[in-house]
């Protein structure tokens, strides 16, 4: 459960940028969270609610958190097959070699925010 800490980092990034643009009310934050980023969307939502209720920084009292999930995707470096990885994620389901590499699913970033 490190989502409280992560949400603290997210709000700090947004806060810093908002200050530089003289944006005083943050209404919406959009995140991209990969399946394999080790951050749980539900726990992030909960952490966001806690910070919002505390009236931290420029966060408006009805600010919204939007989470765009990035599903894990792998591509085989031998046969170029693209697949949704399972537990043994480097094993290509086509050629059975451990030659798959993740091409999506590890992203964890603040995409954008809205404010005035």
């Amino acid at each position, binding site marked *: *459960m*490190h989502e409280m*800490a*992560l949400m603290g*980092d*997210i709000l*700090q*990034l*947004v806060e810093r*940028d*908002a200050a530089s*643009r003289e*944006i005083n009310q943050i209404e919406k934050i959009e*995140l991209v969270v990969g399946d*394999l*980023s*080790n*951050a749980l969307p539900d726990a992030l939502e909960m952490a966001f609610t806690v910070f919002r209720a505390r009236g931290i920084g420029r966060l408006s009292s009805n600010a919204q958190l939007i989470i765009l999930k990035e599903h894990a995707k792998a591509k085989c470096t031998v046969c170029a097959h693209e697949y949704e990885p399972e*537990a*043994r*994620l*480097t*094993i290509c389901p086509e050629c059975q070699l*451990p030659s798959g590499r993740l091409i999506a699913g590890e992203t*964890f*970033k*603040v*995409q*954008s*925010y*809205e*404010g*005035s």
Partner: protein
Amino acid sequence: MKVLLEEEVLTDNNLSAKFNRDLFQTSKTLVINLMSSPGAGKTTLLEKTVAALGEEFRIGVIEGDLATEKDADRIRALGAKAVQINTNGGCHLDARMVAKVLPEFDFEEIDLLFIENVGNLVCPSGYDLGQHHKVAVLSVPEGNDKIPKYPVMFRRTEMVILNKVDLLPYLDFDVQMAIEDLKGINPESKLLQVSARTEDGLDEWFAWIRAAYKQIEAQ
């Protein structure tokens, strides 16, 4: 107005990690971040490592725990410098916490620094501390299913020390399955079988440390 930020959430952590890494590089200190579940045997492994390599290398240890100085005291008892970080409930170490205690070490006087992370197979995996190597410790009583269950940890570490192999005859741990799972999740990683208690297999771990240190020295 809408602002397109597209910034990594861990940007600030990664900046601190870079600061740490630069310091480790300049002083040619080999830094290893050890991660595992609670009770896998990280501290016992470090005790045996300090006891065996203490004459060859000057060793420092950073201990991460929610509370108490118990682990740091175990290392200090062997004569090595140990600094305890208490996260007060936090489930991982981040680069800023590590940066804060670095002034307590004299890096001209340290060849090896071990960072024992908070016992947890999830959260510590995401944080770069500026280390040269990330190593996971897994112990036989935890079961071989931990590798596929916590893929992020095993993807982001370059070696798994399978500890407590002296218990293999009494438990259902399937070593072959663990090796196959690890290969499927991270083909570059390898599994080292040890028992920190009986000291079986530790020579291979020590050899790995010596080789890693030579690399840092040569840079």
